[in-house]
């Protein structure tokens, strides 16, 4: 039986890695997904014939053994499918944050369940298993509440701004250190239940305290880090249960989250430390006042002016940002592109890595609007082309097109890679108001002589432009 289980797990691990390889190109991605799904079927098959379950099956019969598994599996599938099928693409970051919360909770619960079985009931637990369960509960709990916080901020249930309090970083670090000391203590003495439950409760609080001070626009880094933690929690579960497929899948998830958070931090030109402890991006009244004063110098363009500029352009690069997602403007961007292309205009899209609230957010939205992925360009691919382009159309983006990042060392975003929208012959910026972006700083692009601003909801404005052109 053990041989069968291990064989099935081996096949599952192989299929997971092969499936992941499929994701390295858009045209093989769905094939990869099917391989991974097949891998999951093998992993589950291998588990329902686990020796401990089979032992129970012999005594209690099929229904008694599998009733909980079947019931929760069907309810879980129904919930999972309902969420996934119905959620709009603009809310994908929330969906991902929520799923990290579920993943963290599942890992933490399995950890507590194992502790209860081996230590509380059977009265014995060895130190290595205890250490693994400790990590599992720690990462699982941290991921659970941290992701719920991220979900709350993304969905607007909790204020998205950074919530700060005195000695925040010091107290957070102290508490994290304390949790670690508890983890070591309980590994040395697994029989101390009070220590264990205290250690299990602390990460729940820490998750909330760590994410509270981080502002909405830093969410890409938070989500990717929590992705990594969810993976580490799954891996720790594997160590606790001596289950290799869990270790492997968790390690892959952890590596993926790690890579993505590095990509995100680089795209913001900031270190992890700065994102996690910086409480950056305080949009306060002072900045608003400053921008309002400078706001007189911008050139405003009517919808008609914008439509005329676009219809006369031979090439257009669209620079989307979080504002496009908020306004749900991706479909009308697609319609506009269709009209312009029918007119012989080349339309491409410049996707900044941190545009939106999670990695790849803009790509998914534009793909939803039936824009072929071959016109979605990464920053490095397209940044040289702006200077040969007639119109850069900025839809709901701000900091990622701020030229101050290139030449103003005094700017707080100096050094961050930005899209060269300022180098296009002319630049149309669609903005709701003169409010600054998340960094709370003025955007030089808006005051440039070749830039015009069209105020209003991006979706409304673009709809009117489309009407004017067709």
């Amino acid at each position, binding site marked *: 039986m053990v041989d069968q289980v291990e064989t099935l797990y081996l096949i599952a691990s192989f299929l997971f*890695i092969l499936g992941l390889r499929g994701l390295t190109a*858009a045209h093989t991605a769905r094939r990869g*997904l099917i391989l991974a799904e097949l891998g*999951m079927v093998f992993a589950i098959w291998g588990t329902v014939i686990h020796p401990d379950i089979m032992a129970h099956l012999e005594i209690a019969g099929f229904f008694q053994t599998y009733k909980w598994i079947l019931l929760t599996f069907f309810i879980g599938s129904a919930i*999972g499918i309902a969420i996934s099928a119905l959620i709009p693409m603009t809310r994908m970051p929330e969906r991902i944050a929520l*799923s990290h919360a*579920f993943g963290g909770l*599942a890992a933490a619960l399995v950890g507590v369940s194992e502790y209860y079985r081996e230590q509380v009931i059977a009265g014995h637990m060895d130190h290595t298993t205890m250490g693994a369960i400790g990590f599992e509960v720690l990462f699982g709990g941290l991921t659970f509440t941290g992701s719920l916080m991220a979900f709350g901020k993304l969905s607007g249930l909790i204020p998205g701004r950074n919530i700060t309090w005195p000695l925040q970083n010091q107290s957070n670090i102290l508490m994290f250190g304390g949790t670690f000391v508890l983890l070591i203590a309980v590994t040395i003495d697994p029989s101390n239940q009070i220590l264990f439950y205290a250690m299990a409760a602390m990460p729940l609080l820490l998750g909330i305290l760590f994410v509270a001070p981080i502002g909405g626009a830093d969410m890409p880094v938070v989500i990717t880090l929590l992705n990594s933690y969810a993976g580490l929690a799954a891996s720790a579960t594997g160590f606790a249960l001596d289950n290799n497929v869990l270790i492997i899948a968790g*390690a892959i998830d952890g590596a993926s989250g790690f890579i993505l958070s590095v990509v995100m931090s680089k795209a913001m030109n900031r270190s992890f430390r700065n994102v996690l402890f910086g409480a950056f991006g305080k949009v306060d009244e002072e900045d608003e006042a400053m921008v309002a004063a400078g706001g007189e110098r911008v050139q405003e363009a009517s919808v008609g002016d914008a439509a005329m500029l676009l219809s006369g352009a031979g090439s257009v690069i669209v620079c989307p940002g979080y504002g496009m997602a908020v306004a749900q403007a991706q479909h009308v961007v697609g319609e506009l592109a269709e009209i312009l292309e029918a007119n012989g205009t080349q339309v491409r899209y410049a996707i900044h890595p941190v545009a939106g609230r999670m990695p790849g957010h803009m790509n998914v939205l534009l793909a939803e609007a039936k824009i072929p992925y071959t016109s979605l360009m990464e920053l490095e691919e397209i940044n040289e082309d702006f200077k040969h382009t007639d119109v850069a159309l900025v839809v709901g983006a701000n900091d990622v097109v701020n030229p101050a990042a290139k030449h103003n060392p005094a700017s707080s975003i100096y050094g961050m890679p930005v899209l060269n929208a300022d180098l296009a012959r002319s630049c149309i910026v669609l903005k709701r108001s003169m409010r600054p972006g998340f960094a709370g700083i003025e955007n030089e692009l808006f005051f440039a002589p070749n830039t015009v601003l069209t105020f209003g909801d991006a979706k409304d404005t673009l709809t009117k432009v489309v009407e004017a052109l067709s």
Partner: protein
Amino acid sequence: MLEIFLGLYIFMLAAFVGYGVIKGVPALLHTPLMAFTNAISGISLVGSLVAAGAHYNNVSTVLGAIAVLCATINVVGGFWITDRMLRMFKKQDPKTESAGDS
């Protein structure tokens, strides 16, 4: 060799393989990648299934059952939504492709 070391070797190698493969995933697919790895790490389902099915004791069974629920939402929902996203990524103009694509 201690079992924990065997586990650590597996972890280390899997992390390097994961790193190497995922490095090659284009930014275009980063959102599907997150949903995908999320579904895979719902593999903690495997751990919760044993807890829910082996009936060691009531506490373990109940905790395990809740964990199966959470993990299933991730596995089934994660694969579902990854597929929903990947289906949207089209290479050519959707009108010319939809004729040949099922």
